Every structure is written in C-alpha cells, then in structure tokens.
C-alpha cells in the first residue's frame, strides 16, 4: 500500500500536534502516533503544570493532551493513532505499521517529533539483582494513571530533577511513600524550582552527592545500597520500589536510521534555528532536540517549525544548515539549535536551550569565536543541573557569519566548582 501526503508529522505529542495545528490551514497534514491516543507524555502525567507558555493556561497533563489534540483536529490535520513508523523505504518515505495494514507513506516534508525517554536502569549501569519493582517515571505513571495499578509502599527515587518530583507526586497518589531521593549532584537538580517547597510539602529526604550502587531482591526489590560519593561510605536502604528518573535520551531511532547528522551533545538531530535537519525536507521539533524541556516549549517548537516547512513546500531551495556552528563548553553539556545565522532569524522564543551540569545562580554567558569574545549576556535565572538552561540568542549576534564555531561558556566556569563530583 502506498500513500502520499504533503506533510507527515511523526509523533503526536505536544510538539507534533502543535506543528500540525499550525500547518494544517496551509497544507495537507497527517500526524501518526504509535499510541492508542494522541498527546504524548502528558497523557499519563496526571498533575497540573502544563500549557503555560503556549496556551497561557495551567492544565493537567491529560487535559493539555486533549486540548492540543482538539486544536490539531479542528485545524484540519488528519490524526492517526496506533500507527508506528518503523523505518524508511527511502528519502521521506516512511514504513508504517497499524492494525489497518502495512504501508509506505511518502511526503514532501517530514516533521520528526518523537520525543525523549528516561534512561532505564540497564542504561544507567546500576548493578545488582534484577527484581520487579524498578521503574522509570514513564512506566510508573503509565501503571498508576492509565492502568490504575498499585505500586509498592516504600520507594527510593533516583535523581532529583523536575520529573523526579513528578514521580514523587504519582507515588504519593498510589499510596507509596518516598523514603529517599538520591542525587549525584552536590545540590538537588531542581533546587531552585522545587526543592524547598517540595521538601516541605512532600517531606522527602534528599541525599545529594549520593549514588545507588546496587539493587537487592530476588522476586521483588528489598533494598538498595547507596554510596556517599565523597567518603565512599555505603548504606543499605530498605524499599520495595525504585524509580529511575530523568537522565533523558532523545528517541532518535528514526532520525539515525534516516542518516540525519546527530549532535553529539543532545544525541538528537542537529538543527538550525528554523529547525531544519541535515536532510532537505526533514524537520524536527520538541524533546527530540532538547532532552528535556517542558511540554509548552516543545509545543512552541512545533509552531516555530511551520515557517521552514511552508518555505520548503513553496519550493524554496533550503540551503542546508547555513550559518555558524554553536558549541557548548563545559559545564554546559549541550546546546540547541546547533547552527545559526548570527544576523538572521533566531530560534524558537529567541533562545538557545542548553544543559548545565553545574549550578550557578545568575551566570553570565559568553560567546567565543576563533579565540575572540563576540558576545556576553547576564541572565536573570540560574543554570542548574536537571533542567534546561535558556540562553538569549543575542549572545551570538556579534559573531562573524563566515567565522569558525561559536563556543558558549559560563563566565567564571573554570573557577566555580563542578557540580558533578
């Protein structure tokens, strides 16, 4: 079976649905999602905190997912669930499996919006027994919110990113107490945003500078060993549930199978400020590009990609990834987008997204090109591990469009203590 569409959006999460809603008035759009319902991760993230920046509302995940689905459908996009793209039959030719059959869909433009997942226990190389009761936040929330299953009674939560607190909320709702939260950083990652109130409201003890070195239990988890990373001292903590949270990786399988250039920092496809990838007619949006930011930012990516997609459909020969390369220097571990035209249009919301492995309260970001400082901006928010750090695009405005890579650094980063011991 073969089919052709103008725009194929792969992934019906906030990014894909928002792209579809913005594109559908101008082009024929098909959104495919492999799940039984559209909406992506917010479908099972049943707590408020969605939709602020894009819809200017404060919604629960499921309500947000329904709303974005409605907006895309109303705009005229075709939405197809239980349809998984499993590979490529050629350039912009997707192989699709659904209960309705196996088919190849070709498209003039493809938008990849496949999201990101948390690294599960094996990928984090946590040794020990392999009992039941070890979950990622994603699996936990699926179990509790979509399948209404009980979890255990005493949980250890590994990580203290924003998503980790989301796990704590879900555990509490399922009647499971979080007896300990561990963080390998010397400050809890979500420090500024959540730690104080979180600790007070949820009474969760947070152990920083700590890692889990073993999981015990034959049938069900009975405990974990935690190690103080400074002293090497170890201690057994009894629990029947372990949640591995955060530590995100883009779901980049399709991007890699398509042969797109992959950024070594994000591990997602390399994109320019207009969200064009290294392949003509292939675009990307959402957490596939920046693992991970909040859903509203992913959604705004989806809107931002519209312009480049419509330009491509209108036949503009998109110069592939023109401009200068942007590189993240430690303690920044990645930055997106990675290619920009200093004098041209900026990225979504006029900001780079980056990830920092060290805490700085109000850092100054500097841009260095060919050994010369070309820009500097002091921001009014912290760089903190475990959540995206936003950098104004203006920091590269002064870069030479014909020059070498622009390095983004935190001023004084050399002196500040690295957060990760």
């Amino acid at each position, binding site marked *: 079976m073969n089919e052709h569409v103008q725009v194929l959006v792969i992934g019906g999460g906030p990014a894909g649905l928002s792209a579809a809603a913005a594109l559908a008035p101008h082009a024929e759009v098909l959104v495919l999602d492999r799940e039984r319902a559209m909406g992506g991760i917010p479908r099972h993230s049943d707590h408020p905190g969605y939709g602020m920046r894009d819809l200017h509302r404060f919604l629960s995940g499921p309500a947000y997912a329904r709303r974005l689905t409605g907006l895309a459908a109303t705009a005229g996009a075709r939405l197809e669930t239980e349809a998984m793209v499993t590979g490529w039959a050629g350039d912009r030719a997707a192989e699709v*499996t659904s209960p309705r059959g196996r088919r190849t869909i070709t498209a003039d433009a493809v938008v990849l919006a496949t999201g990101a997942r948390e690294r599960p226990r094996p*990928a984090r190389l946590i*040794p020990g027994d392999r009992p039941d009761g070890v979950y990622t936040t994603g699996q936990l929330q*699926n*179990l509790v919110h*979509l399948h209404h299953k009980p979890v255990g009674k005493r949980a250890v939560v590994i990580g203290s990113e924003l998503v980790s607190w989301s796990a704590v909320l879900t555990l509490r709702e399922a009647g499971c107490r979080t007896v300990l939260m561990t963080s390998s950083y010397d400050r809890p990652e979500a420090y500024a945003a959540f730690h104080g109130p979180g600790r007070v409201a949820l009474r969760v003890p947070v152990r920083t500078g700590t890692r889990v070195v073993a999981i015990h239990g*034959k049938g069900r988890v009975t405990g974990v060993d935690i190690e103080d990373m400074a002293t090497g001292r170890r201690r057994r903590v009894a629990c029947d549930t372990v949640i591995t949270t955060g530590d995100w990786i883009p779901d980049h*399988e399709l991007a890699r199978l398509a042969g797109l250039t992959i950024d070594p920092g994000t591990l997602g496809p390399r994109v320019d400020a207009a969200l064009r990838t290294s392949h003509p007619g292939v675009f990307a949006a959402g957490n596939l590009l920046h693992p991970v930011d909040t859903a509203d930012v992913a959604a705004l990516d989806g809107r931002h990609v519209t312009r480049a997609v419509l330009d491509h459909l209108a036949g503009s020969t998109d110069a592939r990834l023109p401009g200068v390369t942007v590189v993240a220097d430690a303690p920044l571990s990645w930055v997106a987008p990675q290619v920009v035209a200093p004098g041209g249009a900026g990225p979504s919301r006029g900001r780079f997204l980056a990830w920092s492995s060290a805490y700085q309260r109000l850092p100054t970001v500097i841009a260095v090109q060919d050994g010369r400082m070309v820009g500097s901006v002091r921001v009014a928010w912290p760089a903190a591990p475990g959540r995206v750090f936003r950098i104004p695009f203006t920091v590269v405005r002064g870069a030479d469009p014909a020059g070498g890579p622009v390095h983004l650094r935190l001023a004084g980063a050399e002196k500040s203590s690295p957060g990760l011991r």
Partner: protein
Amino acid sequence: MNPPPTYDVAVIGGGIVGAAIARLLGGTSLSTVLIEGRDDVGDGTSKANTAILHTGFDATPGTLESELVARGYRLLGDYAAATGIPVERTGALLVAWDDEQLAALPGLRAKAEKNGYRECELVGADEVYRRVPDLGEGALGGLTVPGESIICTWTTNLALATDAVTRGVTLLRGHRLSAVRETGSLTLLSFENGAEVGARWVVNAAGLGADTIDKLYGYDRFTVTPRRGELLVFDKLARPMVPLIVLPVPSKVGKGVLVSPTIYGNVMLGPTAEDLRDRTATGTSAEGFAFLRSKGEALMPALLQEEVTASYAGLRAAIDRNDYLIDLDVHRRYLLVGGIRSTGLTAGMAIAEHVAELLKEVLDLSARPDLPPPPRMPNLGEAFTRPYQDAAAIEADPAYGQIVCFCERVTRGEIRDALASPIPPVDVDGLRRRTRAMNGRCQGFYCGAEVCALLENGVA
C-alpha cells in the same frame, strides 16, 4: 491418599538439555514426565548465555564434549530450520592483539582440524579490518571460523519443550525436587511443594543443581561451581558495527571477552568468568561492568558510545573435570547428565541422543508411529520477517498490526499467541522470552504497564 502419578521416565530439569531428552523420549512409547523446579522452562542457564551455535572448533579433541558439540551443531541447525528457531550464519573471527596470540592461531587451526572442522582460515590484519572496520586499533591478524552462528536460545529451549509436550510428555513446572526414595522397581520423587511422582527411571539434567540431586542418591563424585558470566547488550543502532562474532584468542587466563551480534539485532559484549559459591547469584556487579567496559573500549571504542539496552549474568555449571559427566547407573535406574558447562545450548540435542544410546540397552526406545510434526515457533529473529512487517499477516489478522512494545515491535497478536501456546508464560520474564516484549531500549518506559495488563487480563 491416592498413589502418586507414575511414569516410565522422569527427567529433572527443564533447561535445553532436559527438554531435548524429554522430547526424544516423547517419541517412544514410554511415558515421560519433564520436571522443572522453577516456574518456567528455560529459566536457568539456558536463558542467559552468549547464544552461539558452536562448531566445536576449539573443544578439546577426543572429549565427549568435542564429539557432542560437533554433532549438536548439525542436529540443532536442522531442527532450527524445521521449527523456525532463528539462526544467523554470521561466522566468527578470532582476533590476535599481540604476538603471542598471533603465534597461537596456527595451533588453533590445527586443533579445529583435529575436531573435524576444516574451514578455518588465517587472515592478516588488513582482512580483519576489512571484515570489521570498527574494530579497535592494534589487531595483528585473525583466524576465521565461518560456521560459528548465532541462535535464539530462548526459542530453542521452548521448541524442544513444546515438542516434548505435543508428543505426550507431561510437563510439571514449579516442582523442585527435594527427596528421592527408592522402593523396589519404583523411585519416589518428592518436591518442595509437597507433590510426589513415581518413576521407574530418573534422568538428572538439573544443570547447576545436578550435584545436589546426585547427592540425594548418595553419590559424592562431583561439585558444581557456578561460574558467573556477565554480559552487556548494546542498542540495536550498534548492530551494523558488528557483522560477525569477534572472538578473543583463548589464553592461559581464560577464554576472554567476545563481541557478537545477537539474533534480536543487538550487540553483546562479554562474558566475564568468575567462580562463585552462590548458585542463585545471577545479579550483576560493578566490577563486572567496569571490566567489560574496559575490554570493550579496546575491542571496539565506537561501540561504547552507544546505549546499553540490557545487562545480565548467567551461571555456567562448571565441574572439577574437563568434560561432560554422563553416567548411567543401571541398578538404580538413574542417569546423570552433569557438567554441561559452556556448550550445552549447542550440544543439547546430541546429548539427548547420547543418553538414548545408553538407555536403549535397558529400555525400548523404538520410535512411536505417527508422531506429530515438530512445532512451528514464532520468529524472534531480527533478520527474518516479523509479524509487524508482514502485510498479509496483518490483513488476515489486524492484531499483528497492533504494536504494543514499540522498541522491539512486538504486536498484540504475538502476545495473544504466546498466552495461548502449549507452554504459556507465567510471568513477565516468560513473556519476554517468548515475544521480546519489554526487552528493548526503553525497558518498559512506554509499554511496560500495557504488557503487564495483557499478561494479567489476557488478550481479548
């Protein structure tokens, strides 16, 4: 109280070896029971190995093991073709990293020839890198073993056990043997769950537990030392880097670490070799991971850039001698199959034949007429068409188009089939071994809850 059910032969151990023996006996007119202590067949060493179908090129010539591995290679190869057990004929390449190893290669080829395997070829460093371009720096040369292949160990065990059951063998799972009482012509077997079974003949194929059972008979002739092997499984995106099995040159310090494609389309690095005491120590260790990562860094640095999808540990049933220990005690009507250390997946069917040779002196093993055909197993091999890719299958049955486990592309139809199969899974791990569900890179982030619900509630 009713007398316990009684059989001509009881086979203890539902691993590959026990299942192969039970299948063979199931083809005769004897009544046979296959007894497994765990909740599922194939839940011991047979589920956690490197899953290579060995030619036997490096066995010790003249041993029973050498003979049975070579024969098992052909038997299992044919059986795989008949039942749909996936096999990929990738071939292997031994790589020498120093002069001593390089000098050892001609000897290994000579040894292979003594084992009846004549296809090995010496190749230079250029050829080594031509075949495996991503190999780390410093390879000096290699020896090819074109016949070494990769196979699905889970399907092998399950096919043999299913075949046994369809041939009329009774399967008892969750029956851990704890006592043996010999009464005249009948041996009474008692299990931890309180059940009892009578058998005229008993075959001990209990792997890591074989010496314990042997002691129940009052023997004291060998001790099983669990030798742990830890392995790392890398993401499918790494598969193109490893077109064939890359073997180390065996040395005095042991067999070393290999890099191999897996039948599921991943890449495997391992195993370690560490003698332990605890026969249940199938956990992984920080030291094991560190060792494997350092080995991998040298063998194939690019591989270490990829994500780890899974890690596991298997226990080889090593014994204090250099060969299989297969012995028939005619008077006590008891047969021991012990010390099937690191080649039992390949040799299993040949071990069963060897056992039949011994038993046929005392039992009538002639084949029963009108045996059912061997089972046709669901394909878990990445190199062959799977239901999600099969337009005709989906059209006939849309459940094969409903992907439940996205990473491994496992459909609702396959999960339904597994639940309705002659030996259905009893837990998630059993379902994983029958379908691959939840074995992928997300390890259940997306599908875990759904898969567990299907297992619990069934597939309507």
